[in-house]
């Protein structure tokens, strides 16, 4: 039996353990074993899914036109599996193991722990079912529809968060170690992000329309998306690092002071940086600049974490040479350092103008996900397993082999994809001597990088094979476990309510003749107040919440309340019911994964796609579909560019109209009927959210949709296409595609009772309202961007 004493007892000789009631407890390691098993299982699934989508990208015909296996539907499955299933379960394993030990207390409720485990797995399975079925919000990392989102909120905040907070309240270690702070920040902020980004108006059980539209939806989505990276893939992993790295190295963390500074800096700064995902888009310039500024500042606290991690190993580097667990940690932290240098660098507008929409982003993300998240989890698992299964690891050699295979896999993945990203960016903007695009055919830029995509498959294969090694090692280690696990019982005194640390007790300036103000400043500087926070979990949680909320509101309020952020364009009208149905298909198929809908004010971009996008064009777009990657060309001005029959053929077999295309066949859209009677809920939801549909539009939306579908079908026939296709899903999607980006140029006939314009205002100003001012600003932005580009 182990005995634990109050760690602070030596600070206060006046108190002894005999004064406090001694309590006996054991740790709940079975829940940790469950999460470890889930982490490994989902790690295999997530990496395999990644490998599959990488293969589908170069061999699109492999899917056989089956809709469930298209890149657009499977890519979100891969990202969700990697983030929420693999990393998520890894986080939970780390938190459940370390929190109990750092608090010297069993988790508050075993029942809540198990509800959390099974609830989270059920959420993952429901994601795995719904995403291939095309049930998605099409917002990156927030694809899951509202019923699943509700389940996530309940399981995460009330079950997991509640259990965690109650464990802190009932702890027997007075001081909350820095890892706990990071866990608190994770739980609080992820809950906030998830709830406020997923506010929707339901249009049935499997569809919800975001309460935000266009520019504001984009802003909210990337406030969420960026901070999902921050508070799901960074802060909990820093907590993991602060606990498991000292354990594995058997050395205390390098600098506790640095951990305090970098914790609060991360919490304050990260929340602001989201707009760097939207440089040169229709997002207002001030928000973009602010995002860039805070992203640059973010470099320092991030590297504070990296330095703190690596320097923890000072004096223990000889252990790294022989211990594969430490090797995983060192490489993981190094990748963290690389990613957190590259992130701020990519947030610089001039660099972002080149990198955005290219594979550079993909390489950046994977260096973080495979290197930082993956390797930190692998290191933790290999350290945990002998302790959890109470036997030695089956094969140390296999752990080393996993390490080297994984490292090579990451390198073979990211190096070609960095090259692909640079190639894409440079080819898209390249001009010849006559001022024309050097590569006017988008397909040419994609074909150039396909060989590099093949290399990525090699890297992915290596990484997956490393995960397979982990699986084998785990199964063999588990099979050598003892018949019954030992459950050590610990003893520790309950924390007494009255406690005063030495900061409060001692005042070195007590008898010094000086101003009281000076003494107060000194007392403030000795951080007694922060030390108190570190002993008060509820207060600490509230303070972290306030920090995150204040930072968020300072960015959010102006975005939503300054009217000039989204100048009105008089000619922009809501989609027709059929176009709305077509947009729903576009969203369901995950087309945003390959096609952006945002033309930046950059010369090469306006030459390739047309007039740059204006914020007022997106006011009816729920969700926004600006995308963040171009595997196919931008569609922001797609309306009227191609004939309807061209689109029809493109869905049937993209190679016929675009030789060398990596788009899969969407033949099912040509054969499956559109449910005209299911359009009404979409129109009702859009109307509820402010789209000016009349009662007639709502009541007769089926007949209105059929009329437009017949018109599109007739167009297709007139252009040489098949007859009697007005009831097919493709007609709705074509109607939507032919509408995209056309409203800006539409000239509505003046109403019969229109009066001539007074005070000499030009006609176009009447049409577009404040937009003219935006054009001037953006014109300047265009010049600026072009200078950067050149």
């Amino acid at each position, binding site marked *: 039996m182990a005995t634990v004493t109050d*760690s602070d007892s030596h600070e206060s000789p006046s108190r002894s353990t005999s004064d406090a009631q001694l309590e006996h407890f054991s740790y709940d390691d079975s829940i940790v074993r469950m999460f470890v098993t889930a982490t490994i299982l989902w790690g295999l699934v997530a990496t395999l899914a990644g490998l599959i989508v990488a293969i589908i990208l170069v061999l699109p015909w492999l899917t056989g036109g089956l809709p469930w296996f298209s890149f657009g539907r499977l890519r979100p499955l891969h990202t969700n599996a990697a983030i929420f299933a693999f990393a998520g379960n890894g986080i939970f394993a780390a938190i459940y193991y370390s929190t109990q030990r750092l608090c010297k207390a069993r988790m508050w409720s075993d029942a809540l722990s198990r509800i959390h485990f099974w609830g989270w797995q059920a959420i993952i399975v429901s994601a795995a079912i719904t995403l291939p079925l095309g049930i998605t919000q099409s917002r990156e990392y927030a694809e899951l529809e509202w019923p699943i989102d509700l389940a996530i909120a309940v399981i995460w905040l009330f079950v997991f968060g509640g259990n965690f907070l109650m464990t802190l309240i009932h702890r027997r270690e007075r*001081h909350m170690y820095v890892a706990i702070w990071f866990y608190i920040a994770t739980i609080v902020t992820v809950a906030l992000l998830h709830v406020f980004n997923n506010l929707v108006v339901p249009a049935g059980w499997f569809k919800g329309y975001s309460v935000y539209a266009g520019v504001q939806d984009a802003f909210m989505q990337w406030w969420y998306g960026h901070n999902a990276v921050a508070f799901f893939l960074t802060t909990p992993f820093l907590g993991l690092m602060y606990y498991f790295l000292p354990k594995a190295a058997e050395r205390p963390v390098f*600098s506790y*002071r640095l951990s305090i*500074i970098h914790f609060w800096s991360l919490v304050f700064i990260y929340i602001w940086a989201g707009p760097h995902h939207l440089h040169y888009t229709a997002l207002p310039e*001030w928000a973009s600049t602010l995002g860039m500024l805070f992203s640059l500042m973010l470099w320092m606290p991030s590297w504070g974490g990296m330095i703190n991690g690596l320097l923890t190993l000072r004096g223990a580097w000889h252990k790294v040479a022989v211990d594969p667990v430490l090797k995983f940690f060192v490489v993981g932290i190094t990748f963290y350092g690389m990613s957190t240098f590259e992130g701020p660098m990519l947030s610089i507008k001039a660099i972002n103008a080149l990198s955005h929409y290219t594979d550079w982003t993909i390489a950046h993300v994977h260096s973080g996900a495979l290197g930082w998240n993956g390797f930190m989890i692998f290191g933790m698992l290999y350290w945990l397993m002998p*302790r959890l299964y109470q036997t030695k690891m089956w094969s140390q050699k296999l752990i080393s082999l996993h390490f080297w295979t994984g490292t090579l896999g990451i390198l073979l993945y990211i190096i070609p994809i960095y090259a692909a990203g640079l190639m894409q960016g440079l080819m898209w903007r390249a001009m010849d001597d006559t001022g024309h695009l050097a590569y006017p055919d988008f397909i040419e830029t994609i074909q150039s990088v396909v060989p590099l995509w093949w290399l990525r498959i090699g890297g992915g294969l290596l990484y997956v094979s490393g995960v397979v090694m982990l699986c084998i090692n785990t199964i063999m280690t588990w099979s050598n476990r003892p018949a019954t696990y030992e459950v050590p019982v610990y003893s520790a005194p309950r924390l007494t309510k009255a406690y005063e640390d030495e900061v409060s007790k001692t005042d070195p300036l007590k008898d010094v003749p000086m101003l009281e103000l000076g003494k107060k400043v000194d007392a403030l500087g000795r*951080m007694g107040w922060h030390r108190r926070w570190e002993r008060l979990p509820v207060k600490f949680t509230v303070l972290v919440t306030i920090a995150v909320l204040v930072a968020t509101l300072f960015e959010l309020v102006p975005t939503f309340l*300054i009217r000039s952020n989204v100048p009105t364009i008089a000619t922009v009208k809501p989609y027709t019911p059929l176009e709305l149905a077509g947009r729903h298909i576009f969203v369901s198929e995950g087309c945003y994964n390959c096609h952006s809908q945002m033309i930046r004010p950059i010369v090469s971009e306006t030459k390739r796609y047309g007039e740059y996008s204006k914020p007022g064009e997106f006011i009816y777009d729920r969700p926004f579909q600006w995308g963040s990657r171009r595997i196919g060309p931008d569609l922001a001005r797609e309306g009227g560019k191609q004939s309807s029959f061209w689109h029809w053929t493109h869905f049937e077999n993209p190679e016929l109209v675009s030789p060398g295309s990596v788009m899969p066949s969407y033949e099912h859209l040509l054969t499956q009927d559109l449910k005209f009677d299911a359009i009404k809920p979409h129109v009702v939801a859009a109307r509820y959210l402010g789209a000016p549909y009349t009662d007639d539009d709502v009541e007769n939306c089926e007949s209105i949709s059929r009329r437009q579908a017949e018109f599109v079908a007739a167009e297709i026939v007139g252009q040489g296409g098949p007859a009697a296709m007005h009831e097919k899903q493709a007609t709705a999607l074509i109607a939507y595609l032919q509408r995209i980006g056309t409203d800006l140029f539409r000239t509505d006939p003046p109403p019969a009772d229109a009066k001539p314009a007074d005070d000499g205002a030009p006609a176009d100003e009447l049409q577009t309202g404040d937009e003219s001012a935006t054009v001037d600003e953006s014109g300047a932005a265009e010049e600026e961007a072009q200078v950067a580009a050149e």
Partner: protein
Amino acid sequence: MIKDLVCALDFSAYAEVALGLFVAAFAVIFYGAMKLSSNASARFASIPLSDDVEDPRDE
């Protein structure tokens, strides 16, 4: 009353105010962290090393 207050707010200055807020908070935390006693810092840094985890078995 509240309506008047909200109307009087100048949202365009929010970004600068927020930056100032962050810098002030950072300065306080930084100053305080630097003043933390070495004894306390060393003790807190060692918390994970003293949580009485059972050693893994070698047999």
